[in-house]
């Protein structure tokens, strides 16, 4: 079974530029998550999708971050414009959520550096 795919793996941009990340979840997983992991810390949830609907985006800085999952499968996370403090690893995860079982599986992440 293929895991969660993410691209690109690395991205370097200058502040005020825009950037987009892509995620393809495990086949059949209805729930998709985006997490931000700052160096030395644990991941923190940005947004959660159930199929193509948003379940929780309370931690998403909506003035500069946006995310979509139009067909209930792939998702994109965008930052516009980027700030220095957005330098982090952006992790995508997915889960099946069946009868209370909700193990999350993570992709390899996209490491973003904002100069």
């Amino acid at each position, binding site marked *: 079974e293929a895991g969660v795919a993410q691209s690109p793996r690395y991205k370097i941009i200058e502040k005020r530029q825009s950037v987009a990340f892509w995620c393809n979840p495990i086949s059949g997983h209805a*729930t998709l998550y985006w*997490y931000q992991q700052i160096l030395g810390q644990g*991941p923190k949830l940005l947004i959660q999708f159930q199929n193509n609907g948003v379940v929780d985006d309370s931690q998403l800085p909506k003035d500069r971050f946006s995310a979509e999952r139009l067909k209930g499968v792939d998702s994109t996370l965008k930052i516009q414009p980027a700030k220095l403090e957005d330098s982090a690893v952006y992790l995508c995860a997915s889960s099946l959520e069946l009868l209370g079982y909700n193990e999350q*599986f993570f992709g390899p992440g996209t490491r973003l550096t904002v100069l």
Partner: protein
Amino acid sequence: GIQVEQSPPDLILQEGANSTLRCNFSDSVNNLQWFHQNPWGQLINLFYIPSGTKQNGRLSATTVATERYSLLYISSSQTTDSGVYFCAVDMAGNMLTFGGGTRLMVKP
């Protein structure tokens, strides 16, 4: 929100030694997961363990939900066990809240 605390924050072991990592959480949880983040940043699932005890090779985990803690045991450690171990909990709504991690270095 829920607080998740892991201890110790850093751990250095000689190859072959055993260790116990602890995760305390401040409220009742639906689910608990242990992850190993390898040096390349990949989060690897170790255990999905909202309660009880599970074993997988040299690793085992126990969660005592009523007392709000979980333990991860690593026996006969190997250099490939190095990395960061995270505990993450899910109260409701399925979002995971991560602890600060335990950074493990196993020396040959």
